[in-house]
C-alpha cells in the first residue's frame, strides 16, 4: 500500500507580481517618452551639444577668488542660519508630533500635517514668495530654508522620540516629572546623538540648496554664477563654480566624518 504522490494536489503556485509590475512600469515609461515628445529630439546631438557647451567651462578664471570666497561665505552663513532656524522650529514641534509625548490626538494630527505641508512646499518656491514679500537679499532665503527643513527635522526628531524605549518615559514620569520635564530629561538625552546627526545632514543639504537660492534673488554665490552664465562669461562662472564645488565636497566629507565620530 503506497501513496501515489502524483495524485496529491499541489497547492497553487503563489502569484508573483514581478513580471506584471515590470510590464506596467515599461508601458508607463514608453508612454511618458512619447508624450514628452522626446523621440523627436535627437539624443546623440543633445549629448554632443552638452559636451561642446561643457568645454566652454574648461578654463576657470580664478582672478576673482576673494569675491568668490566672500560670496561663498555668505551662502554658508545662509545655510547655517537656515539650519539653526530649522532646529529651533523642529525642536519645538517634534514633541507635539511624537505619539508618546503629544498632549492630545488633535494636536498630534495638526502638527504632523503642518510638518507635512512644510516639506511639500519646495524651498525655492518659498524663497520666491518671500522675496516677493520681503524684497531681495539673503533673509528671505534663510527663512525659506529654515521653514522647509523644519518640516524634515521636525519629522525626524519626532520619529526618534517615538523610538525611545517606553520604559524610559515611564521611569521619568514616575518621579513626578511634568510634560516639559519629560521632554527635557527623557526624550532629548536619549535622542541627542541622532538629533545631531540629522542636523548635520540638514546642514549639508542646506549648503547645497543655499547655492541655488541665488537663482531667485536670495543672494550668495548662486546669484553671481547665474548672472555670469547669462552674460556668457563662462570662464568667470567656471571659477566661481570651482569654489562652490570644492566647498560643497569639503562640507560633505566634513559632516560625514563628524557623523561617523558620533556613532
Amino acid at each position: 500500500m503506497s501513496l501515489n504522490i502524483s495524485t496529491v494536489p499541489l497547492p497553487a503556485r503563489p502569484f508573483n507580481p514581478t513580471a506584471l509590475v515590470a510590464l506596467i512600469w515599461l508601458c508607463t515609461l514608453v508612454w511618458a517618452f512619447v508624450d514628452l515628445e522626446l523621440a523627436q529630439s535627437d539624443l546623440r546631438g543633445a549629448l554632443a551639444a552638452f559636451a561642446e557647451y561643457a568645454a566652454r567651462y574648461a578654463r576657470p578664471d580664478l582672478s576673482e577668488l576673494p569675491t568668490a570666497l566672500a560670496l561663498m561665505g555668505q551662502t554658508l552663513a545662509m545655510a547655517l542660519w537656515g539650519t539653526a532656524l530649522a532646529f529651533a522650529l523642529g525642536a519645538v514641534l517634534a514633541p507635539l508630533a511624537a505619539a508618546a509625548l503629544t498632549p492630545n490626538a488633535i494636536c498630534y494630527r495638526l502638527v504632523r500635517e503642518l510638518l507635512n505641508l512644510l516639506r511639500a512646499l519646495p524651498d525655492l518656491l518659498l524663497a520666491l514668495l518671500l522675496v516677493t514679500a520681503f524684497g531681495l537679499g539673503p533673509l528671505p532665503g534663510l527663512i525659506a530654508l529654515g521653514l522647509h527643513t523644519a518640516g524634515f527635522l521636525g519629522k525626524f526628531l519626532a520619529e526618534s522620540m517615538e523610538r525611545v524605549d517606553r520604559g524610559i518615559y515611564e521611569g521619568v514620569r514616575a518621579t513626578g516629572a511634568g510634560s516639559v520635564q519629560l521632554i527635557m530629561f527623557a526624550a532629548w538625552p536619549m535622542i541627542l546623538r541622532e538629533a545631531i546627526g540629522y542636523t548635520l545632514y540638514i546642514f549639508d543639504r542646506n549648503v547645497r540648496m543655499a547655492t541655488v537660492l541665488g537663482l531667485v534673488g536670495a543672494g550668495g554665490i548662486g546669484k553671481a554664477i547665474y548672472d555670469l552664465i547669462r552674460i556668457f562669461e563662462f570662464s568667470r562662472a567656471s571659477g566661481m563654480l570651482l569654489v562652490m564645488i570644492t566647498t560643497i565636497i569639503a562640507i560633505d566629507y566634513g559632516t560625514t566624518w563628524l557623523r561617523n565620530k558620533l556613532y
Partner: protein
Amino acid sequence: MSLGIAWPTRSGRPPLALLAVGIVPLALALTAQQVEFSPTRLAQAALAVPAFLAQLLVMPDWSYLPELAARLLETIQITLLATSIALLFSLPLAVLAASNATPHPLVGWLLRGLLSLIRALPDLLWALLFVSALGLGALPGVLALAMVTIGLLAKLYAESIEVVKRGPVEGVRACGAGWLQVRLYAMLPEAAPDLIGTTLYMLDHNLRAATILGFVGAGGVGYDLITAIRLFQYDRLILMILAIYLLVTGLDRLSSVLRRRII
C-alpha cells in the same frame, strides 16, 4: 599640585562636544550681519507679511485647472523617466563602486570620487547648464535630473551592497559561482529590500525636484509657477501650491505604504 578634580570623561580632559556648543552660537553671531539678520530688517519683514498674505486670499482661477493638470502630468513623467534612467545606470555603477564588490579598489575609489563630483552641483544648477546647452523643454530636465539621481542613487546603492552579510556571499561562492554570479545571485538579492526602499525615497525626492526644474525652463509645472509669481497671478498660484502639496503628500503616503509591504 593636583586637586584631583577632572572632567567626567575617559581622558579627564573637557569633552569636544563642549566646543561645538560654544562654536555654533559664535558662528551665528558673527554671520548675522551677512545674512541681514537684524531687528530692523526682521521687523520690516514681519510688517510685510499680513499684506502679502492678504494678496494670496483670492478666488482660485478654476479655468486654469486643465492646463495645470497637463503640467503636473508632465512633471510626473519627467520624474518617472529620470528615475528609471538613473536606476538603469546606477545598479552597475554601484556594483563597481561598492568596496566589497568592486573589481579593483582603485576603480571603486575613482568611481566614488566621480559620483561625489556629480552630486556637488545641485539639481537646479545641472538643469540650468543643460537648458543653456540644449534649449528649453523637457529633455534637459530629464537629463539633468537623471544625472543628479545617478550621483546619489549609485552612492546609496553602493552603501547598501557594502553592508550585505558575508554568509550568503561565501555560500554562493562555495558553490563555484563566478565573479558576476556572486554579485547577481548573492549580493544584489541580499541588498534588494534596501535597494527598493532607496529607489522609492529617490522617486519621492525627484518629484519634489521636478516641480522646481521649470524655474530655469526645464519643463514641468515650475515654469508656470515662476510665471505666476512674476505676473502676480495669485489666483493661479494658490491652485498650483495646493496641487503640488496634494501630489507630493500623495506619493509620500503611497511610498510609505509600499515600503511597509515590501520591506
